[in-house]
């Protein structure tokens, strides 16, 4: 693959300011993001860098402005949608190993959203895995997570507390369909708020299209098209236009990003009932604060039991926690005899400010 060689070409490499040392960490934190000194590349960089391996296209992981991106082939369409037409994106199939400055790098399914990856890095017999965002639940819109053995695991823990335990997604899908039918019975349109990349498509996949018309907010619509373009089969859905709102009043299911509720956008669907699909809906306090009529517990992040199980499966003896309730996980891992530490993310320490609540889609338009 030409592009891959290009990505790894020394001409595009930064001068190596971290000469290989024995016991040098394979991944370090820098003010631009996670950096692999030996391989001279960044992971999910939040500033412009020459070579950026992106775990997935969510806005807190994929930022515009890097010279070259490397991402899993499944996710190229979506990453392009978010990084812009001119971005240079090199695709790589899951499992294929490339060498960057002698460091062996491969991407493995993370089950988070379409094209999401864990990144496996191997140098001098030392193996690190960066989980990216991931989940272990079934999701028809992306490849399932595959545990990868490693010495050091950098894992997300957005929902890293034992109160977060997901119920089966099929049960949630049935609840959503029942809610939709219930709203139809009283003449209300259903507006389901779901993160526009990933969650929206997962929700869409679980809808019973026989119940009635499905409409998508502009932000959701664009990404859903990118999903279809990547070969993901989803129920037919229209555009949440004013005409469609009028035509299907009281019958339609509308999928929109959470930010849509703060705008006047939702008014054209009145009377409606609103629902939110998010892992935070597990807790009543969070549910109430969102102010929606219904909360559906549906997350694209790993829950606590599956997080512990994943750590076991990787056989890692060094656990680095990032994204969420890191302190608790680090303390628990240490109590269980593992080496463990926390990695700062750029979003401070507030557990609520994950991508599930801070909605920042790039394409946001009044539909």
């Amino acid at each position, binding site marked *: 693959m030409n592009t891959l060689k290009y990505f790894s070409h020394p001409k595009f490499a930064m001068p190596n300011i971290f000469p290989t040392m024995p016991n040098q960490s394979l991944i370090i934190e820098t003010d631009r993001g996670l950096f692999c000194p030996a391989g001279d590349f960044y992971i999910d960089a939040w500033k412009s860098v020459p070579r950026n391996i992106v775990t997935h296209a969510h806005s807190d992981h994929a930022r515009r402005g890097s010279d070259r991106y490397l991402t899993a082939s499944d996710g190229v369409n979506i990453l392009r949608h978010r990084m812009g037409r001119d971005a240079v994106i090199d695709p790589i199939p899951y499992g294929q190993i490339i060498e960057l400055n002698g460091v062996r790098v491969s991407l493995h399914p993370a089950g988070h959203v379409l094209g999401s990856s864990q990144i496996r890095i191997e140098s001098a017999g030392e193996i690190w895995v960066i989980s990216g965002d991931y989940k272990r639940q079934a999701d028809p819109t992306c490849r399932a997570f595959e545990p990868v053995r490693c010495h050091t695991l950098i894992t997300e823990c957005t929902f890293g507390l034992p109160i*977060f335990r997901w119920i089966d997604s099929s049960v949630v899908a049935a609840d959503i369909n029942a809610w939709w039918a219930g709203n139809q019975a009283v003449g209300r349109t259903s507006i389901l708020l779901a993160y526009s990349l990933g969650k929206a498509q997962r929700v869409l996949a679980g809808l019973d299209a026989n119940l009635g018309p499905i409409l998508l907010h502009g932000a959701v619509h664009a990404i859903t098209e990118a999903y279809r373009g990547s070969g993901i089969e989803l129920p037919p859905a229209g555009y949440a236009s004013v005409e469609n709102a009028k035509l299907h009043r009281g019958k339609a299911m509308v999928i929109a990003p959470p930010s849509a509720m703060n705008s006047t956008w939702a008014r054209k669907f009145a009377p409606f009932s609103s629902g939110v699909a998010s892992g935070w809906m597990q807790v009543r*306090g969070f*549910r109430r604060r969102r102010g929606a009529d219904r909360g559906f517990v549906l997350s694209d992040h790993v829950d606590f039991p599956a997080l512990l199980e994943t750590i076991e499966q990787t056989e890692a003896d060094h656990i680095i926690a990032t994204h969420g309730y890191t302190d608790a996980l680090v303390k628990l891992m240490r109590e269980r005899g593992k080496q463990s530490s926390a990695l700062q993310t750029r979003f401070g320490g507030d557990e609520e400010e994950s991508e599930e609540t801070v909605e920042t889609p790039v394409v946001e338009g009044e539909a």
Partner: protein
Amino acid sequence: MKRFTALYFELDETTRTSEKIAALGRYFREAPPLDAAWAIFIVSGRKIGKAVSSRLLRQWAAEASGYPDWLVDQCYRVVGDLSETISLLVPTVADTNAPSLHEIVEERVRPLGSITQDSQREVILGTWSQLNTDERLVFHKLLSGNFRVGVSKQLLIRALAEVADVSSAVMAHRLAGQWMPDETTMDRLLARHDPAAVADSGTPYPFMLAHALHDGTSSLGAIADWLIEWKWDGIRAQLIRRAGQITLWSRGDEVVSGAFPEIIQAASALPEGTVLDGEIVAWNDETSKPEPFIRLQRRLNRQTVEMTFWPEVPVTFIAFDALEIDGADVRDRSLVERRAMLETSFPTTSTLRKSTPLHYETWDEVLHIMEEARSRGVEGIMLKRLASPYQPGRPTGLWWKLKVEPYTMDAVMIAAEPGRGRRAGLLTDYTFGVWDNGSLVPITKAYSGLTDVEIVEIDRFARRHTTGRHGPVHTIEPLMVFEIGFEAIQLSPRHKSGIALRFPQILRIRKDKKPAEADRLETMQELLRSMGY
């Protein structure tokens, strides 16, 4: 338990009254009678048993979940509600088949108070294994001895009245008094309307309520069309004498006869078939003025009052309307006529009085005497159209209330702690301080009166400016000034400042004020002295 849990979540997750009433109605129609009887008992706020120590619950939850205590505590800090935290932590056994509500209450919850700690543990762990997450939450609410689900007594009464097809007053009467749920409870509560039975009872009429007057007096027309009287600061009540029985009903549809035996005794002077509307007020005979409401509250908190307790807080019933005279319902007559009947219905005594109408020629004079309201110990002024019949609810244009503005002060936020329920996880309960010799002394706590947006903003601010923590309480850098309103001030040796405020409420954030510009304790002490303390 499944059905009751579904009801709990329906009630918990809607703020629409109509939906709450529909959910309650559905439940009462469908649930087995004994479960429904217990549900009424619980939702109306009656105690079903002694609360289990939350320390033990937490300990058993750690045990059952296999996680260390510190992790359970951290979960609690995030969730903000112990009942919910534990329900989320305890493992769920697949395909649970929950016992019925009455089994849970009668066989699990009620006996807990009289068994050993080991047996308690056995009962609770055993029950956990039979319930799913949501059912466990409701179980914990039953255990906590504090079951709140956002249903007022009036709402419950309305829902039951609809199911039984009787008036709310009849239902309120059926629900009143001491009773324990049994197989016959629902038959009694939902019995068909029996007019003869009601005539004999102490059933009150629905209260007529006033709107607050915001737009000034200009739209009211001629002052001669209005009856003007003080707005008493007490407990609105109907005093009923029928069939040799005397009953005192509060506006909360509660019989409060037991708390005010001297009023009941004085009411024996009323003729048969009399119903009076009025206000129970704590009264100081020496000053001939009402006492602060808080003194009355002390009386209310006791179920029955010993006769010897009377003189400590003397009370009086101030009648301002007559609804039934000589056994006849006179509510359709005009206020003028009803007042005339009131005047002749009983001789005034120190415990049974009549509200005296105030006479003024112009609206300006009325607004002027509002300034006296506070020193007279009243809440404000009532304006009632003389031609008005007595109508249930809050009809427009007939009765108006003019309340005195609350006192205000500027105080600095010095501490904050997380709220519960809807505000779980957010720092919403604030402590405010005023200046005393260069340092801030806590003067009051307050949390109501802010918008959701402001609450989130203050939460962010407080977290950024936390200087220390003691348990859930964050000490906050004193930077943010608030205007706090309150309705009364009194001496309190229990408080560090020596002062307690009644009904403190945040009026607004004073972004224009620096902390140094906040009020001083001295100013508050002066206010206290001006009140005669």
